[in-house]
């Protein structure tokens, strides 16, 4: 088929439609592309093609956003993740103000800022970890517990305490990242593997020792065990209680690290309003979890809230990291991971989208795709 420059440009644009639109809308991609051949003038054909290109982009965007909204509608997370993001932002800002007024090393602010950006950028990938955790909870839980055990047994020890791994200049407290995995895995499926992993993780926390995180895991498991009173979960919760007791039985010689531990008291030394701001910022962190209305995952969400309530309480009561408001990449990553892991399973989303008429699977090459391939070059 011949045509002027504009017609050929229109055809070239038309060949992109099939790549932009979802597979189940391939027929419409072909419809727009082939209609170009019936437009009267070349100039009009180009305008037609450009309009259809915009339509394809808008349709694709609607599908992507619509799928996200369906996710939220199905899980009823609603505004909760945004509230979590706001709470995190508030805590980070309060902490940044404390660091600025308290003359903290600039690297503290930089680490918190860069970690926050990393957490935001990596969030979509982290949601896939949520899919994996929901699909293979035992395996993911064992991985998290194994990481805790490795740190306890082989990690660098500071005054007899082994909770961290070094990533360059930054020390990561592994438990703040591993415990969200344990909570989601234990909540996803009541299996021997997941419960065993929780017990292993609790034992590792006792060995480290880490009273705060041992209590946090206990709080989460207690809620999960109370939700269905299953023997396996109750046993795991009891083992967590034993581990917490063992952790408390050991000395915890760690002194408060400025801008990490006891930051409310540190802020009070600068000014009461700052102390109130920092305290309020940390107290708000667990609340967004309570906004999630998903009845099917209520126990898991509440367990996650209990985890973060305990982490925040520990920061007020002892020399334990102040989450997000204090210096430390671990809590920032752990908090972001907590939200990412609570995302619904991709499998569920795919099945529900399929029921509503949207298909995730690529459509087989049918007449529409063959017609699209027939768009003249």
């Amino acid at each position, binding site marked *: *088929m011949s045509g002027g420059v504009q017609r050929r440009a229109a055809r070239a644009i038309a060949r992109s439609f099939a790549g932009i639109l979802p597979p189940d809308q391939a027929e419409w991609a072909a419809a727009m592309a082939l209609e170009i051949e019936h437009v009267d003038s070349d100039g009009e054909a180009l305008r037609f093609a450009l*309009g259809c290109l915009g339509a394809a982009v808008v349709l694709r965007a609607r599908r992507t956003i619509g799928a996200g909204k369906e996710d939220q509608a199905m899980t009823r997370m609603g505004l909760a993740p945004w509230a979590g993001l706001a709470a995190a932002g508030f805590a980070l800002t309060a902490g940044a103000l404390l660091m600025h007024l308290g003359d903290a090393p600039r690297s503290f602010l930089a680490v918190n800022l860069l970690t926050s950006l990393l957490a935001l950028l990596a969030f979509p990938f982290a949601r896939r970890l949520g899919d994996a955790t929901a699909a293979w909870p035992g395996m993911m839980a064992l991985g998290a517990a194994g990481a805790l055990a490795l740190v306890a047994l082989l990690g660098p020890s500071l005054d007899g305490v082994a909770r961290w791994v070094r990533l360059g200049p930054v020390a990561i407290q592994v438990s703040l990242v591993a415990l969200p995995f344990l909570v989601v895995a234990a909540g996803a499926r009541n299996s021997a593997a997941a419960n065993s992993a929780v017990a292993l993780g609790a034992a590792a926390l006792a060995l480290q020792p880490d009273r705060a995180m041992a209590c946090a895991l206990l709080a989460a498991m207690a809620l999960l065990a109370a939700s269905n009173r299953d023997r396996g979960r109750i046993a795991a919760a009891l083992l967590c209680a034993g581990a917490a007791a063992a952790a408390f039985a050991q000395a915890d010689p760690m002194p408060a690290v400025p801008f990490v531990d006891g930051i409310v008291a540190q802020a009070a030394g600068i000014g009461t309003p700052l102390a109130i701001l920092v305290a309020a910022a940390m107290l708000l962190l667990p609340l967004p979890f309570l906004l999630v209305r998903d009845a099917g995952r209520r126990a898991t969400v509440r367990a996650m809230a209990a985890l973060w309530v305990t982490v925040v309480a520990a920061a007020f009561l002892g020399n334990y990291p102040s989450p997000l408001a204090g210096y430390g990449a671990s809590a920032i990553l752990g908090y972001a991971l907590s939200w990412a892991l609570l995302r619904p399973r991709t499998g569920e989303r795919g099945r529900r989208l399929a029921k509503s008429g949207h298909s995730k699977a690529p459509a087989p090459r049918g007449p529409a795709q063959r017609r699209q391939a027939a768009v003249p070059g």
Partner: protein
Amino acid sequence: MGRPPKHSTAILALLGERPAQWRHGYDMLKATGLASGTLYPLLLRLAEAKLIEARWQDSPMAGRPPRHAYRITAAGLQAVAAARAGTAREPARRPLPAAGR
């Protein structure tokens, strides 16, 4: 069934003029004055809502590719009727007072 938006109503009204007739996208574009970027998303949405149906038609001219054609359904005719009824019920606008009063 709720009233469809303005552009959708225009498309349905056009197809409703001759309900048995299949029409093509470019023809509808010229008749309604809508841009292709507006027209096709609406056609897709109307088809998903079962207010119109779509099918491929071979071109009568040799060497020309097939065309996607559209026709209004019974549900689409009802939607047009509902839209017209809703328009008929809207109160007439009050004339603005003349300047100077």
